[in-house]
């Protein structure tokens, strides 16, 4: 039978407050990660090494949040021994913050490479494809965090589907860059750096897909990792359309 997922309304108001606080901190961490991605893309697309350096020097904030939230989760497990949906929430948070921290690391790479590319006076126009891929990834992460906040498993499943497009765009960029390197060996170094940026964005898509899988687990108690989207829809009786 269908159950409602109430994350508040415990008899213990303090427990309600603890869970609310930890969810807010996850959203805060998500917001910081989104900001880092924005900065990283801006640094690349506008060849702004100052913004690039800001990205690399700000990564510590995300790392610190991961450590704090992990510690708080452990305290909740020890104090409250949560069960059912509360337990799934803590497990989801522990796994989500790991993926968010990794996305933050990938964003830091964007900042780092943007500084190197800006130093080489590379024409910003070469990064148009990266910009497109970046927007796609940003939207994916935003939708995933939104699905987590609203406990929307269907939205999470749709976002998982978007990762396919991210992978396809990454493949397309890789092919273009290979062509560029073959045409002019002097472009190899910068092309490689752009390729690593594209790879970083593709990895962000993978981590975001993980977060969506955790949201489905949180809402429905079903572990859909390593299962195709089609199979998941069939098992759960959900039709997302095409």
């Amino acid at each position, binding site marked *: *039978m269908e*159950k*409602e997922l109430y994350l508040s309304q*415990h008899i213990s108001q303090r427990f309600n407050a603890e869970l609310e606080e930890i969810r807010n901190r996850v959203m805060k961490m998500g917001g910081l990660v989104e900001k880092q991605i924005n900065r990283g893309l801006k640094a690349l697309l506008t060849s702004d090494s100052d913004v690039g350096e800001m990205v690399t020097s700000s990564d510590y904030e995300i790392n610190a949040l991961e450590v704090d939230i992990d510690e708080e989760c452990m305290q909740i497990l020890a104090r409250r021994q949560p069960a059912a*949906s509360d337990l*799934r929430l803590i497990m989801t948070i522990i796994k989500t913050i790991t993926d968010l921290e990794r996305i933050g690391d990938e964003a830091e790479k964007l900042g780092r490479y943007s500084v190197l590319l800006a130093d080489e006076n590379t024409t910003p126009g070469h990064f148009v494809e990266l910009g497109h891929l970046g927007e796609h990834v940003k939207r994916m992460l935003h939708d995933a965090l939104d699905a987590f906040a609203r406990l929307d498993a269907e939205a999470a499943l749709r976002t998982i589907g978007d990762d396919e497009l991210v992978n396809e765009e990454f493949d397309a960029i890789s092919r273009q860059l290979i062509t560029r390197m073959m045409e002019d060996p002097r472009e190899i170094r910068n092309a490689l750096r752009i390729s690593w940026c594209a790879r970083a964005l593709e990895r962000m898509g993978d981590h975001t897909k993980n977060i969506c899988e955790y949201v489905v687990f949180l809402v429905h108690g079903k572990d859909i990792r390593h299962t195709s989207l089609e199979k998941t829809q069939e098992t759960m009786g959900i039709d997302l359309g095409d």
Partner: protein
Amino acid sequence: MNQAVEFEEMEHEIVGTVGTPLVDNPKMSTRNVDVFYGDKQAIFDVNLDLSANEVIALIGPSGCGKSTYLRCLNRMNDTIDICRVTGQLLLDEEDIYDKSMDPVLLRARVGMVFQKPNPFPKSIYDNVAYGPKLHGLASNRAELDEIVVTSLQKAGLFNEVKDRLDALGTGLSGGQQQRLCIARTIAVSPEVILMDEPASALDPIATAVIEELIDELRENFTIAIVTHSMQQAARVSQRTAYFHLGKLVEVGETNQIFTNPSHQLTENYITGRFG
């Protein structure tokens, strides 16, 4: 507190029992069990099977009927004048409420361990030997000694008391007394052991010892345990049954009940949302 009250007033339907209340080849089988205390109905139409060599935990808020139901399984409710039990309750397909069933013999086959340890005011030896003597299970002293020693060993108490079997049972610690009561129950070779909050009066170490013992006892007995501790139910049982206001709401594999229960009421109870 207002939130909890509002929650209780919400209508949550209990239609039938969700999950797996029935099993193939049950050790004990109950159908359409109603229990009344005078005019007041305490248990409503419970259908539940106990599987052989399993530990099944009965959980639910205070007053939900889990202890009342447990006491039906060995007719302990017979001792309460105003209590009336209807329905079909079978032990290995024998009707335990049949007129031909001797309740004393039944309670040897379906033993009970209570919340407060209640050793007899006798020696440790005599506590364990009492049941076998009563039921004529030993034909001589040597056989009786064997039963006493084996039961104390199975209850994990023998090493602690082997040098003082003639000491008073009531002189033991709480945890030891409870294990003595378990040894006393085992001594008459039951098939089923009912435990009504067996560890709630014990400290954490004694509780852990009892839980370990329950796991070992499962090899030879079927065990039904009523507990207020969700974590204990999760640790010791293979199946868990959730009772609510006298109705059996959900039964399922313990792992599933505590990570993803099917019924809203079960979810609410085990996450501490009311009750």
